[in-house]
């Protein structure tokens, strides 16, 4: 096995960033979901909404924590594994990430404490404000980091003088050509992830006949959001596709599985290929005739451009990009089908009774996470061999650190992160098994709802005296 430092650095970054992305994707979606739920609770005073809030708050808190600590790793890992990249790109993406920390991380962190632990210490309006601020923080965070990553994909606004980058126009750096499309794409992915997570858990309860009220509401809400969101997502996805076709043609050429400069006409849509990068051909390919022209060229007979249009040393690895894209796209189609099915079942009045549908929802609980990961693999492996497209290659970007150090720390990351995700899954399953807390929390505790909503400090003597808790 090659112990090439650049390969090891890539594997290490790929591992840590893949692990990390799972958690902010959930957090962005769940934070907004929680804001919606809390709004519904405040408006309708229906205790089931508080149940839903507290249930998902638990899982959100764990995921958020892992997201934060794995995220800190990344902000230093640019320098640890890719020092030459950092030196070059620092002037451009550094300020973007600095603004992310200033406007988003602090906002989330500042209000998270109140959101998680302040239910008893602040009034309901301030608590709702805190929830909203955390949700806004996640949104801002995604915006900045997507701008930084999009700049790496479609750089703009910079001038280069012997290996040094100077920013010439910040607006061009921030709003680089792919950002306006990739940002809504990622945000929608996060909201879809939460929708299917929530609906899937609800469906599980319905199948077992438990926690009916909780389950019906979460399935209804989850499927409703998912239906609207997936329609938007496939629309945005096509726009992202068009943009990347223009600015990073090599990526889309690799994504579709065609090698020849001009494919046959009409072109098929490939579902399964065995690509041979050395011989620049597919040893085997299975596709639906004509569909390639229809989907990829929006015409009946259009030809698709293959990877040979890109010089060999600048080609990404087709196998990686192709299958990552297929996984994401197939999940998208499945989600769309689920959305249409949910509309049909609502029409027939059997949304909560159709067992095959509920089982599908359960299976699709992690679908958003898998699709998001797959999409990111398209983005990052498709950009290779560049780390800043057209400017800096990945092999030229690594740190002067020996392979042994990279390998040993990679192993350390894998072991530690394995502990994190195992614990997360065990505790999440436990929370799901336990189910939502049945009794309404404190609406009746002090005899009037108004009292329960008044802010107070927990240990004040009067409070302890009046307390009707155990």
């Amino acid at each position, binding site marked *: 096995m090659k112990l090439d430092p650049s390969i090891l650095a890539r594997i290490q970054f790929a591992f840590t960033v893949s692990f990390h992305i799972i958690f902010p994707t959930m957090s962005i979606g769940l934070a907004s979901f929680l804001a919606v739920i809390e709004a519904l609770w405040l408006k309708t005073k229906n205790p089931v909404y508080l149940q839903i809030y507290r249930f998902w708050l638990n899982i959100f*808190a*764990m995921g958020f*924590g892992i997201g*934060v*600590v*794995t995220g*800190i*790793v990344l*902000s*230093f890992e*640019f*320098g*640890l594994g890719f*020092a030459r990249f*950092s*030196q*070059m790109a*620092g*002037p*451009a*993406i*550094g*300020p973007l*990430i*600095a*603004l992310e*920390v*200033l*406007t988003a*991380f*602090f*906002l*989330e*962190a*500042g*209000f*998270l*404490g*109140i959101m*998680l*632990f*302040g239910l*008893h*210490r602040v009034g309901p309006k301030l608590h709702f404000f805190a929830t909203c601020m955390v949700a806004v923080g996640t949104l801002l965070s995604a915006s900045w980091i997507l701008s930084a990553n999009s700049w790496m994909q479609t750089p703009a606004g910079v001038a280069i003088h012997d290996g040094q980058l100077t*920013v*010439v126009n*910040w607006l061009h750096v921030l709003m680089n050509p792919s950002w306006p499309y990739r940002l809504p794409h990622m945000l929608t992915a996060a909201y879809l992830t939460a929708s299917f997570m929530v609906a899937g858990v609800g469906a599980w309860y319905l199948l077992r006949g438990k926690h009916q009220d909780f389950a019906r509401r979460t399935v209804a809400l989850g499927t409703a959001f998912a239906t609207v969101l997936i329609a938007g997502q496939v629309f945005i996805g096509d726009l992202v596709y068009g943009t990347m076709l223009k600015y990073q043609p090599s990526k889309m050429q690799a994504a579709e599985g065609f090698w020849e400069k001009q494919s046959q006409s009409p072109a098929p849509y490939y579902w399964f290929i065995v690509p041979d990068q050395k011989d620049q051909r597919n040893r085997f390919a299975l596709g639906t005739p004509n569909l390639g022209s229809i989907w990829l060229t929006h015409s009946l007979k259009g030809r698709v451009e293959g990877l040979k249009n890109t010089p060999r040393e600048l080609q990404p690895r087709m196998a990686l990009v192709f299958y990552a894209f297929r996984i994401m796209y197939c999940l998208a189609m499945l989600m769309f089908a689920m959305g249409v099915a949910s509309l049909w079942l609502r029409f027939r009045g059997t949304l909560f009774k159709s067992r095959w549908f509920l089982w599908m929802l359960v299976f699709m609980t992690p679908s958003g996470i898998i699709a998001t990961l797959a999409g990111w693999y398209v983005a990052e492996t498709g950009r290779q061999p560049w780390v800043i497209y057209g400017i800096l290659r990945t092999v030229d970007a690594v*740190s*002067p*650190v*020996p392979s042994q*150090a990279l390998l040993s*720390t990679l192993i350390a*990351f894998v072991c*530690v992160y394995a502990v994190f995700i195992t*614990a997360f899954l065990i*505790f999440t399953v436990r929370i799901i098994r336990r189910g939502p807390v049945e009794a309404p929390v404190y609406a009746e505790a002090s005899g009037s709802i108004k009292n329960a909503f008044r802010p107070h400090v*927990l*240990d004040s003597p009067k409070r302890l005296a009046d307390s009707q*808790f155990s």
Partner: protein
Amino acid sequence: MDLPLLSASFLAFTLTLYVILDGFDLGVGILLLFQPAKASRDHMVDSITPTWDGNETWIIMAGVTLLAAFPIAYSILLPAFYLPVILMLLALGFRGVSFEFRVQSKEHRRAWDVAFGVGSLVAALMQGLILGGLMQGVTVQNRHFAGSVLDIFRPLPIISGITLLFGYAVLGGGWLKLKSNVSLQHFASRSLRVSAPAFAVFFGIVCIYAVRIQPGIRAQWASHGTALACLVGLFAIAAGMLTALSGKSKPALPFLLGLLLFVVGISGTALIVFPEIVPFSVSLWDAASSSTSQRLVMIGAACVTPVVLAYSAFAYWIFRGKTPENGWEA
């Protein structure tokens, strides 16, 4: 306007805030390892739970400011400190997830508490190691790191690590005196009686040893002798006060004295490091990115930092007073 100087000041500001705020978080974590009673451990963790995330965020701010304003220094220092940085990140990871995981797990809470404590301890040690490594000097060639990743495991960094460990324990003890209930006051006082003198002694050793092995530091003492001597004196007095009075003092005093120790220490470090950013080879201005990048960071920092400080202070105010006995959930 000297933008690199401004950026360096902001960098120093974020690092100072980090060291003070996460200092007591990590300190409480270290002390957790020495607390046998489960209820007391819960109480200790409760005292830092609502605000730890914001505190930790300052280190990200520092790292990212370095990337944005001094990318050359970032690209030299991170490979140089590759091993301690990664160990620190993993340790902070364990500390961070333990907050949530220990609550979820009744049977294994003790194990998660150990993870919490060890994570805090290792993180503190690594941060001290990095500081010592900075003082020791880093091999630079042609604006790139040219040394070995093992250079950091030498006496000065190691002693610095131990020094910071005791320093954070002092901050942690002070925080507990401020926020905890009666039963933990004794524990906190006892810890201060050990950590404060230890901190002072090791700090002294570091100062002397650093002067002996790093000519750059000797030169700084030559030019700023009086200022540095005053700082050392102030440090000694504060440490002495802390050791003497930890018995029955106002609850805020030990914590404030601890803060003073750190402010003094940081000021001294700043005096020694300035005007280099990679001591003692690369100056601030040599490591800086172009003015367009510096300007954006400074404008952003100037506009947003006051807001951040305001709502962070607000969050602390919400959770003011003594930490409740039964935690935050009731």
